[in-house]
């Protein structure tokens, strides 16, 4: 029976010649990543009666959600997790200086085509950008991986989103991903994998691929997949020490459905409150005023995102009374923004930089919102209370739209500034 690349990756990891959608398999996990919201992982590990991590090279901790510790409780979480890293002899650790897990793992050469990557974070779908099987789990599933090196999975069926064409200047991968959300909706891919393909994807660079796959989880997807292109292979070959294999889908594989989106002439897209799939082209959204803009997180904190803001704001200044928080997704990204002088230019334009990490995306620190405030953000969720008060409104947009809107103080099409 014809298999998708994702299914072949799972089959190989499960030691089986083939698998089919719906089947439950126990698969070996090539990398398990635990972030600093998940002290519970360690508790569950010991509650299971486990003593030693099955492979200390295949488990890494990344401190990103609470980097640096915003509360005494968070400091305690870091302390207990650091002690575990030491006791277990984990070979690689990313402390508060590193950045967001989904950025630092690929940068460190830990993500490669054909692997099974599981992390305690829903946005692990990001790594479909590299032709990997990436999926998010909770603390207790991760504890099972730490103890045994394996986890059970239900083999997903696969839907296809074919993206054709090329949008114009200042219309970014984030806009394309939001357009996909508008079409597929927030639960359109529950229990399925999404493959993104088409001429747009074939030509897309690594950061852009990561943005699109990152938002697949907002459509409910278990994982995302893009067939690696030359840009991916160049990126991986430059960074990884691990062997890997690019996997291909059988030509006669049957997808559950296909959504075709023509991105030629696409407008900037906005997800208005209160759900990620409440997406409209910018022309159909009122020119509301914003108190804060945010460029950062695993969705919008790469160098390319900061560069878009730089292009719009260099030599200018954000509107009076507004605030723009920029948080590079990693130390590497921050260093590049500093070396190129773009960070300096953005600070002169009124931006506030914080250390690499998740920042206010999940409402814990570095730019929370109070009731009655409105934020435009390059991050990934606009649920009530996501970035602070449940009475603060969050608009999701591309980093270019965030920068243009901070320049004027109201929702602004980046193609017009």
């Amino acid at each position, binding site marked *: 029976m014809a298999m998708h690349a994702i299914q072949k990756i799972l089959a190989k990891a499960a030691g089986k010649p083939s698998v089919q959608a719906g089947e439950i398999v126990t698969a070996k996990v090539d990398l398990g990543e635990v972030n600093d919201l998940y002290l*519970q992982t360690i508790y569950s590990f010991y509650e299971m009666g486990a003593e030693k991590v099955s492979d200390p090279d295949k488990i890494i901790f990344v401190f990103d959600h609470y980097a640096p510790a915003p509360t005494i409780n968070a400091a305690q979480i870091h302390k207990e997790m650091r002690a575990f890293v030491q006791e277990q002899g984990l070979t690689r650790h990313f402390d508060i200086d590193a950045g967001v897990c989904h950025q630092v793992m690929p940068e460190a050469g830990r993500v490669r085509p054909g692997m099974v990557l599981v992390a305690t974070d*829903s946005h692990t779908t990001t790594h479909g950008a590299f032709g990997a099987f990436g999926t998010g789990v909770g603390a207790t*599933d991760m504890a099972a991986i730490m103890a045994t090196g394996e986890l059970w999975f239900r083999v997903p069926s696969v839907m296809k989103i074919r993206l054709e064409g090329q949008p114009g200047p200042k219309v970014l991968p984030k806009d394309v991903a939001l357009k996909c959300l508008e079409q597929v909706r927030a639960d359109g891919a*529950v229990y399925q994998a999404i493959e993104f393909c088409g001429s747009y994807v074939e030509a897309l660079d690594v950061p852009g691929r990561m943005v699109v796959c990152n938002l697949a989880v907002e459509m409910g997807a278990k994982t995302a997949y893009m067939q690696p292109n030359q840009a991916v292979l160049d990126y991986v070959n430059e960074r990884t020490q691990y062997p890997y294999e690019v996997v291909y889908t059988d030509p006669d594989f049957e997808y559950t459905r296909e959504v075709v989106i023509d991105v030629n002439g696409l407008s900037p897209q906005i997800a208005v409150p209160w759900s990620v799939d409440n997406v409209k082209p910018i022309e159909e959204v009122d020119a509301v005023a914003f108190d804060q803009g945010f460029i950062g997180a695993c969705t919008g904190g790469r160098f390319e995102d900061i560069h878009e803001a730089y292009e719009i704001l260099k030599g200018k200044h954000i509107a009076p009374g507004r605030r723009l928080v920029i948080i590079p997704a990693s130390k590497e990204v921050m260093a590049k923004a500093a070396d190129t002088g773009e960070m300096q230019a953005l600070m002169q334009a009124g931006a506030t930089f914080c250390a690499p990490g998740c920042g206010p995306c999940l409402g814990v620190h570095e730019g*929370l919102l109070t009731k009655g405030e409105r934020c435009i953000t390059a991050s990934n969720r606009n649920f*009530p209370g*996501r970035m*602070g008060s449940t009475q603060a409104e969050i608009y999701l947009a591309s980093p270019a739209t965030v920068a243009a809107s901070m320049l004027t103080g109201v929702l602004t099409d980046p193609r017009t500034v």
Partner: protein
Amino acid sequence: MKTTIKHPVFVLSDNVDTDQIYPGRYLDLTAPEDLKKHCLEGVDETLAARFEQDDIIVAGRNFGCGSSREHAPIALKAMGASVIIAESFARIFYRNAINLGLPLLVCPGAAAALQNGDVAQVDIAAGTVTLPDGRVLVGEKVSEHAMNILSAGGIKPLMRAQLEK
């Protein structure tokens, strides 16, 4: 795990996400007794205080979407939820809840047929919900794999048995 439950319901809408179930600002808490005080605070700040042991949550589509935070099902279980019934569940939430031994039932129509405070009777093994007027809604049976985990009281006892071998 109780397989039949007869208790009042709390009815919620579609797309109740993990930020509403357990807001991000409390993620640095770790004790279930602390977590439960903030459960569903993003929907209704008074809900946790009014919730009684074994009450039932009934929701619309895509319950538990968003983050992978296990705090969400830990808080729901600690608050006393006996079962969560929804049109559909987000997958990470589904796994997390089953792993903790918190039963979930996919039952289309339940959210529309029930109102806050109604007493519903749920048979988890059969996958049915009996409404106050006696009508029976038939949901999806919990898969054998998930039922094995639930019956064991969650994944941890199963793992303990596996690791002792």
